[in-house]
């Protein structure tokens, strides 16, 4: 069984304006992992995610998807879903049509697509809102619709770019718990970008701490994936210890930042 999903080898990204988004990065995402990318602004965590989604092309180095190029990903092959910072819903369409969109674009027959929407909505607890429009939903509910839209294709790899960054902490915690449950149940391979070390500590089986200017991987931190990720986990001593460790790594990274700033 192949356990590798996405592999990055010496991937570099220099933007057209000359900014070095990413110094050479090596990364290997294994099947069933929930990896979070965390680090200060400008550390290239979103850039890294977009390279994996093939929304950006690397300046140097190579990205491989399931041992091949991006053509491995598509309606016939492996599936990749992306959840953006904003819900990016179509305001003119109701929840069902929004969730069905990726299936429509992939040419899935209407009846089959319709049948798959409701289970996806049930997964995010929104089966009661199927006929509502985005303007009628709260921010948290819109984000859930966006997640349902990502899950409806049954992705082999789920990419999430600070999906809950704009939500209040209470809503964010609830969505994190839902995500943890979904990922554990379906063995979803997920790469999750976040600003919040608590979110990273709560969700991940592996935390990748990144440093800025140029963006690079500073440290990796493994968390026992066996731990049940529920409300009690947040209150446990293990959680507190993980947060302390991550906090120490992040403060190292920010000191590093100050030094480079002073050197410049």
């Amino acid at each position, binding site marked *: 069984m192949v356990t590798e999903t996405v592999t990055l080898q010496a991937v570099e990204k220099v933007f057209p304006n000359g900014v070095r988004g990413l110094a050479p990065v090596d990364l290997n995402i294994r099947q069933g992992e929930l990896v979070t990318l965390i680090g200060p602004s400008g550390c290239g965590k979103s850039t890294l995610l977009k390279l994996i989604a093939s929304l950006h092309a690397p300046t140097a180095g190579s990205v491989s998807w399931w041992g091949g190029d991006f053509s491995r990903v*598509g309606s016939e092959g492996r599936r990749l879903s*992306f959840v*953006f910072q*904003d819900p990016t819903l*179509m305001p*003119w369409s109701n929840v069902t049509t929004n969730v069905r*969109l*990726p299936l429509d674009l992939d040419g899935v027959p209407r009846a089959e697509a319709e049948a798959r929407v409701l289970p996806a909505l049930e997964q995010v607890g929104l089966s009661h809102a199927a006929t509502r429009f985005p*303007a009628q939903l709260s921010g948290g509910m819109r984000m859930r619709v966006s997640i349902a839209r990502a899950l409806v294709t049954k992705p082999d790899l789920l990419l999430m770019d600070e999906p809950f960054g704009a939500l209040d902490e209470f809503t964010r915690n609830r969505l994190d718990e839902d995500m943890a449950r979904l990922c554990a149940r379906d063995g979803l391979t997920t790469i999750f970008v976040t600003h919040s070390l608590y979110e990273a500590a709560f969700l991940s089986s592996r935390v990748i701490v990144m440093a800025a200017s140029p963006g690079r991987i500073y440290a990796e931190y493994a968390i026992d994936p066996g731990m049940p990720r529920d409300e009690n986990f947040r209150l446990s001593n293990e959680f507190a210890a993980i947060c302390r460790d991550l906090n120490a790594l992040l403060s190292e990274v920010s000191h590093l930042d100050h030094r480079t700033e002073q050197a410049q």
Partner: protein
Amino acid sequence: MTSSRLLSIGAPVAVGVLFLVVWQIICRVWNIPPYLMPAPSDIGASLMTNGPVLLHALRSTMLVTLIALGVSVVAGVLVAFLLVQSRVIERSLMPYVIILQVTPIVAIAPLIIILVKTTMPALVICATLIAIFPIISNTLQGLRSVDPGLEAFFRMHKASRLQLLLRLRIPGALPMFMAGLRISSGLALVGAVVAEFVAGTGGNSAGLAYEILQSGFQMDIPRMFAALALITLAGLVLFGATAALQQLVLRRWHEHG
């Protein structure tokens, strides 16, 4: 009826009534002759006596306005679609769209009236030339101003150009298009009236502008004001109709709760 609704309807009506009353009193107290400044009552009386003629003129003007608006919508949207297809097409054609916009229509209206022998098409062309620009520019901007995240989502799913157009660009352009339609409906009326002024056509196809001109020649100032009131009324109806249409089409965008 809620109190805020009462305020939004009642307050402007009160201002209007007050204005008419003050106008009436000034005209009566200073005994201003109707050929200088008619009182609202004179205008009302004129509306009654000249009613059939003025309503016929209103029909002509509205016909020109609505046809011009229809042509503007169809042609404007087509031009916007053409322009959005490629940078080259836009770069080569956009200057001419702008030239069309900045050239005062009053200046080219006589030329069009001379070139196009039949009155009705000539009037429609003039009104269309005025009304089409907001449709073109707004539709173009609407087609462009797509949520970049959604566009990335479509690209990730390898959407075809047709899918992008039908499922993203066209619905996404609707709010801007509707705003353009509102502006254009007012401009189409302006264009129709201006064209009628220049053409000066009387007879069966005489519009409200012709009635204003004639009233001026005959020193029938109350009739002039009556015709003007009808033009204003027509403008209000057009504005209300397009606003209602906008509300209807974009309800889902803004609906809360």
